[in-house]
């Protein structure tokens, strides 16, 4: 996709647009040819207004002066025509993610894109916002825009696509009609039969292991982002924490590991107060931690697979003697984990940054599973991971649960929450607004995630 948008040049082959061979030297060329792209990570300037962001790159001018009025007019006109509902004068940083995404779409349309590439656009949206996006996509289609919609979520492709191409390991492995079943699509994606639901027995729930009481967390910018949260994670049970990104989940689990110090409240592990533990003490006390963004703090990119597999284990007697590392033991460990977790890598020496997302995540997961755990905190354990690896990682998590470990899974994807959880806690605006059983209907969970308390729940509380 980056090739179509001119960010990368193909080493071989050609791109044809309306039957003509084109070659792009940069996004500018692609834009000029009518190709617009909305990236997974938004490319907006937060301190600019919507209109300013939209005109960026092709600013309308009157002499040497920017013509802001014209840009505003353009935004208003486009958002009316496609029913996009964007205020041209709003500051981008103040807008919710879903609206920022619409700004990206307006931006692409403003440069007269005939073809719109959407790269994993739904990752950051609530179920309701996803529905709105789908409606916008249909509207665009009706008015003649072609859309390339990249996603790993099968439900969404089926809902909105007219034709489906499946890409596996850089190759188009097949095309399908939207009438194909999810299982058929998943098989195409993975190349073998996969089960989309994790087979699991009823949990054998034991004693509470990790307990949080009245936890409040203030983030580095001084905002109170976790407000008086209490929960308990019990042995042999998966506690799912659902919620739209940015509702305090990140900070909550960071405080559990000791990466952020809670402003109030206590955290206990097996009855022992660990509220003031740092990450090292927490890890040594038996907490396993899979961070939400692996490239941010899950692995060290330039480090080899071998080194990343001991990133938090190198201090143990198994891997070091005095001040020296036991390179032999570290290498043996790498071979064993690569086998066990089926990590696809050229060698143990390959830098993790050059692996695929799924295999990077397997490195992180393999590392955390390679020592005895009391609690596993897994945040977005399968974000940006291929279907095959999702299945594998989910199975491992359930196996760990059945082994008697308390599991906390934080996910913004309802599929994952439903697949793994034995209890679901929903976070909204820094609070756990409800803890519900795993058979709660999707619609109800969606409303809870959006901060609304459904009628049936109000009665129950």
């Amino acid at each position: 996709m980056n090739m179509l948008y001119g960010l990368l040049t193909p080493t071989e082959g050609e791109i044809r647009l309306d039957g003509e061979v084109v070659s792009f030297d940069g996004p500018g060329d692609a834009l000029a040819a009518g190709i617009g792209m909305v990236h997974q990570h938004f490319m907006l300037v937060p301190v600019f207004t919507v209109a300013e962001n939209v005109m960026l790159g092709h600013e309308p001018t009157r002499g040497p002066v920017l013509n802001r009025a014209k840009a505003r007019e353009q935004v208003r006109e486009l958002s009316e025509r496609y029913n996009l509902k964007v205020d041209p004068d709003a500051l981008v940083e103040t807008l919710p993610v879903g609206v920022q995404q619409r700004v990206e779409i307006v931006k692409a349309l403003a440069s007269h894109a005939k073809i719109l590439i959407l790269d994993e656009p739904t990752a950051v949206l609530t179920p309701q916002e996803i529905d709105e996006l789908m409606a916008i996509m249909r509207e665009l289609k009706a008015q003649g825009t072609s859309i390339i919609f990249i996603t790993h979520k099968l439900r969404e492709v089926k809902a909105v696509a007219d034709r489906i191409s499946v890409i596996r390991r850089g190759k188009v492995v097949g095309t399908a009609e939207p009438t194909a079943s999810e299982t058929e699509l998943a098989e195409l994606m993975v190349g073998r039969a996969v089960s989309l639901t994790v087979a699991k027995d009823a949990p054998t729930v034991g004693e509470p292991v990790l307990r949080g009481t009245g936890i409040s967390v203030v983030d580095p910018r001084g905002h109170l982002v976790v407000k008086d949260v209490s929960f308990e994670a019990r042995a042999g049970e998966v506690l799912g924490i659902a919620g739209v990104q940015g509702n305090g989940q990140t900070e909550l689990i960071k405080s559990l590991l000791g990466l952020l110090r809670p402003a109030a409240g206590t955290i206990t592990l097996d009855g022992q107060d660990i509220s003031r533990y740092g990450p090292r003490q927490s890890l040594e006390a038996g907490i396993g931690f899979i961070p939400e963004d692996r490239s941010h703090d899950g692995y060290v990119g330039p480090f080899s697979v071998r080194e990343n597999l001991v990133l938090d284990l190198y201090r143990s007697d198994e891997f070091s003697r005095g001040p020296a590392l036991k390179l032999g033991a570290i290498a043996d460990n790498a071979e064993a984990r690569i086998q066990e977790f089926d990590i696809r890598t050229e060698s143990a020496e390959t830098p993790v940054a050059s692996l695929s997302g799924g295999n990077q995540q397997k490195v992180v997961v393999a590392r955390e599973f390679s020592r005895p755990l009391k609690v596993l905190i897994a945040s977005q354990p399968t974000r940006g991971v291929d279907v095959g690896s999702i299945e594998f990682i989910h199975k491992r998590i359930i196996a760990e649960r059945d082994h008697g470990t308390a599991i906390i899974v934080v996910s913004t994807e309802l599929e994952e929450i439903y697949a793994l959880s034995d209890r679901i806690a929903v976070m909204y605006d820094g609070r756990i607004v409800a803890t519900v059983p795993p058979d709660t209907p999707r619609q109800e969970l969606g409303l809870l995630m959006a901060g609304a308390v459904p009628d049936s729940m109000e009665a129950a509380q």
Partner: protein
Amino acid sequence: MTAMSPTPETLAPEPEGKAANGLQAWLPTVRDTALAILLALIVGAVLIAISDEDVINSLEDLFAHPGSFFVYAGDVVRHSFGAVFDAYKALLDGAFGSGSALRRTLERSAPLICAGLGVALAFRAGLFNIGAQGQMLVGALAAGYVGFTFDMPPVIHLGAALAAALIASSLWGGIVGLLKARTGAHEVITTIMLNFVGRFTVLYFLAKESFQRPGSDNLLSPPVDDDATFPTVFGLHLGIPLAILAAGGVWWLLERSRLGFEMRAVGANPEAARTAGMSIGKVYVLTMAITGALSGLAISMTVLGLHQSITDQVVGSVGFDAITVALLGRATPHGTVLAGLLFGALSAGGLGMQTQAGVPPELINVVQALIVLFVAAPALVRGLARLERRKKKADKAKAARTGQEVAA
């Protein structure tokens, strides 16, 4: 880390991860460095030519008699080549031409290598250490003071003076690490400021009576006691073997030790290091302390070896050249040794150029700076060397070929 420092990832090589690919992975680096040196020498040659008196004279003739252009143009070219040839021959002679030239090269390389290793180590931990200069200054003061004040038995006196330098310099460096760990103060700012403090501390002490050589009006300390000086072998003091040992030690630290693992992790991704339970603050303090100790080792070679006294100019610009050496050496121990030898040779050869060919020694500084400039801009160098363009052409040709095949 910050916008100010060149990120160590871009500098530092893929650690040992790429060792499997061995030499091949290093080829582009070696090629780019060689090209950078070559280009810098070419620019240097132009400077030599246009500042040469014969060339200037023949240029004047050329403009005075535009009619006989070719006659005088020939003169210009001939004189230019002559001047450049003489200068670079003097450079080579000065660096390698004789036993004493070689000795001078090695003597000048050793402190550059040690201080360069300190800067390189800091780079790998994500720290941009501008402070080698200040660390060396306080190290000089400590080594010199112990060296000329006390009276101790032979080996012990040298050991004590050396230890004093290492401790003083590593404390000076450690302060920077501590400030960063505790308050987040940026190491570029603190090291630069501590350079000033170090410089004026030395000036202050040198003006004191206890640091004054009797009968001297200059800022010159008494000579270091003979028992506290480096022993010499074949007229060469211990500097070079110590520098090589230090490089080996830094390599072991980075590639084989727990602390080195933490340093590299913090340097490449501090967030991941923190989440993995590493103490970033501890790594900063220890890294800066070790960096300082390496600076201290560097300056003791001068104070206890070469000069055997302290002056206000004792460090020269070694502390700053160390940064360039570490950059040129891509922040690896072996690269730093090679870069240190190159700069040592240029420095010794510069002296030869001045005495034999009358080229001002500042030219060598220009060449050194240009080398690093070209190394820092590999795309520029490759562009100048037309490598990039050729590659693009080849790619286009290939694309065209495949296109034709498809069409056929």
